[in-house]
């Protein structure tokens, strides 16, 4: 349900945006330069902020919250975890006694084995808590120190392990754009050659943004890492 809501809101945002045609968002690039020697390149599937998007996000968050609470309540009811004084509390009692809630309790009740319900409820709790709407990948460049890549994935498991990797400047042999076969296509991607490692480090490995973004990041990284006076400053925004 959450997925459908998100997809719909995305579609609306897109139609208003007039720049994208289909429901799946192509990655966007956001550049942040807190100081002339630092740059952060964020590639994310989150669409650019708009009123519709904010409304959709607020309603989605509310929905998740409600779903989370209902699942929690059902779980505690079935397992009789709540002590009597709490269930008899004047704020909670009308809700627990209301017909829709009673119907829900009956629906998830005895014909369904208790363990199955408990597992399902736990799953719903987890999904409501941990669902990531967007994939976000970052590249942080610090002149004189090095670069750091990080990836936060989409979906249920995305937030588990944000893969972060720091490469100090003296270990960076080069930063370059390469082409390779991937599935049925040839893609451009940004790689960092690391001293003493056989494998290259691919930047933005999940999203693999298109050439325009990759080139902008490549110019910026080289400008920030190697060139004096922060020449990439003109490309901000």
């Amino acid at each position, binding site marked *: 349900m959450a997925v459908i809501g998100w997809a719909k809101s995305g579609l609306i945002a897109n139609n208003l945006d007039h720049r994208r045609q289909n429901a799946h968002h192509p990655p966007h690039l956001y550049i942040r330069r807190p100081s002339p020697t630092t740059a952060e390149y964020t590639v994310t599937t989150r669409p650019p902020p708009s009123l519709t998007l904010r409304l959709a996000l607020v309603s989605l968050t509310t929905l998740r919250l409600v779903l989370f609470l209902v699942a929690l309540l059902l779980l505690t009811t079935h397992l009789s975890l709540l002590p009597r004084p709490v269930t008899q509390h004047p704020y909670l009692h009308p809700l627990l006694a209301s017909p829709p809630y009673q119907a829900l309790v009956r629906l998830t009740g005895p014909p369904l084995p208790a363990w199955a319900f408990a597992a399902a409820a736990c799953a719903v709790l987890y999904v409501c808590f941990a669902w990531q709407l967007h994939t976000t990948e970052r590249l942080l460049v610090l002149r004189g120190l090095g670069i750091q890549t990080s990836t936060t994935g989409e979906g249920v498991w995305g937030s588990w392990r944000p893969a972060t990797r720091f490469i100090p400047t003296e270990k960076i042999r080069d930063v370059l754009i*390469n*082409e*390779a*076969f991937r599935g*049925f*296509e*040839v*893609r*451009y991607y940004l790689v960092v050659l690391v001293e003493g490692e056989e494998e290259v480090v691919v930047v933005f490995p999940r999203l693999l943004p*298109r*050439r*325009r973004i990759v080139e902008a990041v490549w110019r910026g990284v080289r400008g920030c890492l190697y060139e004096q006076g922060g020449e990439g400053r003109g490309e901000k925004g």
Partner: protein
Amino acid sequence: MAPTYNIAMVSDFFFPQPGGVESHIYQLSSKLMDRGHKVIIITHAYDGRTGVRYLTNGLKVYHVPFLVIYRSTTFPTVFSFFPMFRNIVLRERIDIVHGHASLSNLCHEAILHARTMGLRTVFTDHSLFGFADAASILTNKLLKFSLSDVDHVICVSHTCKENTVLRASLDPLMVSVIPNAVVAENFKPYRNPGEIPKETFGQDPCPARPLGPHDTITIVVISRLFYNKGTDLLTAAIPRILENHPNTRFIIAGSGPKAIDLEQMIEQNVLQDRVEMLGPIRHEEVRDVMVRGHIYLHPSLTEAFGTVIVEAASCGLYVVCTQVGGIPEVLPSHMTVFAKPEEDDLVVATGKAIAALRANKVRTELFHEQVKSMYSWTNVAIRTERVYNGISGAISEAEFYGYDASDPATWSATRGRSGVQSFALIDRLKRYYGCGIWAGKLFCMCVIVDYLIFLVLELWFPRDKIDICPDWPRKTVDERREPGVR
């Protein structure tokens, strides 16, 4: 300003594998790039060579990962190459797809898909085939399929043209003959006496000096040792030639399944001191081996062109070769002695060549300059460019096909009225339908499926989602070749 094109050369055969087709593609591509065209090469992945590579002159090579079945040809899956091919063609903005070698499955697939995508196609045939055995019949049917709908065909010799026209039932007007060439600078004859190490036998004195009656004559054979290269003939002829001519030596370079037969022959006849087997050599070493000899022996059973004999003549060697395929067209008669492809005649012809050299009747020192003036890759590129101009309509059909051919009365049905082949599916189907009772229908099915796959791909991977490759700055051709202009 002449039009320039984005050209994709497609073949299963490319470097790192050595061979005639491979170097043909490379040389033609570099000369076309010198003339301002953009050229990329699509081949399959070799060991340790997958993905996108650049050669030093800016030539881009796509090594597409594919299954290799036999002598580095890929498995013929008619449609599996299409998604990848379409992606490459779109990102490189290709106008013309140029396939090479009739045994290359990748090339045939590429021609089919390119026509489905509405691109101009050219096919270059490098080899001759028979008509009788099962493998040839199958290959010919496949060739007929892919050449039913091709814009133009290039053959490397007139014999090859005749063969291809018959095999693929083509209109001879749409087949051009553009021979191979050699880089004459890489095949200069031997001049410096200190160049050859003394411990191995090789030519001494060098051919510029007259040959005495008892000087050793060295015969060089450089060939992949396969059946079609005539290695059996060589195995049979060597003992007889050495018996008839005492001061004669052989140097054999190359490897292949027939190498073992040669080694057995050497051991049986105890010829270890007169026949040297060098094993496989790299293409850049060919010249160093050739200049050690006086005579180049080429016993091939079938050959469309035979670049190697041009290379040998360019090195100043007298050439003895079998009169098969396109070989008689390649060199002028004063550089060669021809033999029938049989043992006795080969022995006699080699004897004649040795006698002629001993009598100092052959001016081998002049061969290099003569070959240099006959064969150049720039010339090949100019002629190929003319084919591209012809099929893309840049020069008129009358100019391209000849004035009598553009007469509507003799106009071939396979070509459209515009002089170039129509891309309409129904016209393409008509061409394929004539391939045979069953084959025609099968081929039509394939073409229809291919077209459907194309439509699916257009939906699945829309064109605007494919990144366009940036081009190298193009070279401009200076037609007048004025020194000091640039």
